């Protein structure tokens, strides 16, 4: 086991940059998830760690060694691919033992290690089957088993669950987490699914356009996104962004959305926001779960406003309501019994304790 360090890592495909300078320290035994939209360079980064792509610039270290020029097989890593990449002509046992057999490990040792990995993944009775006799989930387990058997310093996963159906995906997600808790190998996991990222990661790395937007624990990214991109990417349904202006209101500050709707800024934030008062392009960010139905007991900084609803979507546990404010569609999350009906006006509550003020010019959360 080992830590992984990336220092100003750059990847160019001919003239086009895929990764534009990444710095990242991954601790021993840590589970780090790279997440971001399609084409942001997650796979490329992972493949550079694996040694499957040349590194155009910067350094990658595993343990204390710079491994830029070390071939994949000597990096002591194991990788699980999206399409499993099981060797179709080999049985599960042969698949899992392939690396050890290439290393000419002793027969007993091979058997012991394969059986141990098979036990961890609960695939002992599949050892004699060929990959095409397995279901998708079983293939996924075998692919993981092949990685575990090698007892590498680092596990690399590239969207390992995206070929599975929704239910199995959730199940295998838990499985991966369990396996990591058992073997505690340093793991780098790539996904474009932010829920997968949030549930699996010790730390999430949000990437965009070949750069890291923010690194943090799942809770930190959710509650304190650093940029508008992260704010919009993490969380589902996505955060609402409403153009607004900031005006003085006596002692405090007011966020003005429309002539009718304005919210008083929570006192503890007023100092932080004041320099931006009157400046042009600001944007209020608030998650749907912080736009609620009106209640009799309001907590401090929860403020009431009234809008006409366009659409309602009952989800069971709660109902999503959609309305327009200042030209933006806004989503709220209300109690199913609150009587939300499309086309009618409704009183809602904005929980400003969880608001974010974003400078649209820089994309930074203020």
């Amino acid at each position, binding site marked *: 086991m080992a830590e992984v360090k990336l220092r100003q890592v750059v990847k160019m495909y001919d003239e086009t940059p895929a990764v534009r300078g990444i710095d990242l320290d991954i601790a021993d035994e840590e589970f780090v998830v790279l997440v971001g939209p399609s084409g942001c360079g997650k796979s490329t980064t992972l493949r550079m760690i694996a040694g499957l792509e040349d590194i155009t610039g910067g350094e990658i270290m595993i343990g204390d060694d710079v491994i830029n020029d070390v071939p*994949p097989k000597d990096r002591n890593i194991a990788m699980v691919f*999206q399409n499993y990449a099981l*060797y*179709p*002509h080999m049985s599960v046992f042969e698949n899992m033992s392939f690396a050890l057999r*290439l290393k000419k490990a002793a027969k007993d040792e091979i058997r012991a290690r394969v059986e141990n990995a098979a036990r961890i993944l609960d695939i002992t009775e599949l050892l004699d089957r060929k990959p095409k006799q397995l279901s998708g989930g079983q293939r996924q387990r075998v692919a993981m088993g092949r990685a575990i058997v*090698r007892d590498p310093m680092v596990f690399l996963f590239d969207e390992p669950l995206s070929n599975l159906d929704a239910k199995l995906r959730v199940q295998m997600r838990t499985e991966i987490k369990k396996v990591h808790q058992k073997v505690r190998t340093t793991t780098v996991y790539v996904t474009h699914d932010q829920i997968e990222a949030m549930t699996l990661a010790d730390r999430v790395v949000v990437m965009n356009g070949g750069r890291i937007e923010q690194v943090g624990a799942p809770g930190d990214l959710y509650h304190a996104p650093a940029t508008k991109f992260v704010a919009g990417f993490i969380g589902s349904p996505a955060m609402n962004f409403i153009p607004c202006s900031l005006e003085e209101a006596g002692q405090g500050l007011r966020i003005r959305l429309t002539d009718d709707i304005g919210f008083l800024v929570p006192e503890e934030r007023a100092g932080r926001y004041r320099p931006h008062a009157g400046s042009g392009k600001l944007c209020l960010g608030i998650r749907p779960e912080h736009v609620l139905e009106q209640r009799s007991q309001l907590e401090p900084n929860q403020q009431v406003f009234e809008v006409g609803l366009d659409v309602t979507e009952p989800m069971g546990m709660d109902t999503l309501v959609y309305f327009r404010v200042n030209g933006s569609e806004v989503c709220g999350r209300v109690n199913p019994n609150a009587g939300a009906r499309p086309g009618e006006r409704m009183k809602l509550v904005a929980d400003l304790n969880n608001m974010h003020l974003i400078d649209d010019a820089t994309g930074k959360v203020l």
Partner: protein
Amino acid sequence: MTTTAQTYAGAAPSARGGSITRNRRKVLILSYVFLVLFVIFFLTPPLYMFITSLKTSAEISAEVSPWWVFSPTLANYIQLLTSPVYLTFFRNSILVSTFVVAITMVVSILAAFSLARMKFWGSATLATGVFLTYLIPDTLLFIPMFKTFAFLHDLTGIEFINHWWVLVIIYPTLTIPFCTWIMIGYFSSIPKELDEAALIDGASYMQLLTKIFVPVALPGIIAAAIFAFTVSWAQFLYPLAFTTSTDQLVLPVGIVTTLIKGDVFNWGQIMTGALLGAAPPLILYAFLMDYYIAGLTAGATKG
């Protein structure tokens, strides 16, 4: 052909529903009609050869139906199989084909692997080039080849012309381009992640080839090998041009040159010789048919 028939017969009972069944039956009848026409078209000549091979020369030239044997005899077979000349042709053919298949497979597997997988400067152009060489007609090549062998003879003193093994040098120029092309296609259909997984698992490029690519692409390799065998077994023009002594001839040329004496055509023996000559490829096909078909439908069936 048996495979096709079995597929239809096996699938028929599983069809359900009125109009689908009727529609299906129409298609089935049509396909059987065409299959039967095909079979008749392709099997008549061998059948005619077989019938003729059982006749004496006298019966062949007699004014009776050519489609029936009135006094069957195995004399043609016995004569040929005890004739040292014919057995020499046979041996030469087998030697040539075996060596050609071996050389072709080694070269084209290695070539296809490097062209399909080891991206190097000009590999794409080279792959196209390989195929283009296949498009050059054989007939254009044998005069330049004659010149080349003459030149090599002057250079080294080795006599190439009129030895059966010269064919082992020539035939690969016909088989390698096509086999390489088949194998490139087959290797390219193997997912890239398979190599990457193997490379991470610690395989060298050579192990990647022998432990992953060859076993996974085995149906394609067998298809290519059958092709190489068929080409070298049935080749006529080159052995006719490059070999002349009776003990250096291969079957197709040997039958024609020794069994036709002047304007006397020994039809019974010609047919017998050709029929016996066609046996090895037939036997090979029969054994490898399943693999061959799997190879021709590469990728479509891979799980």
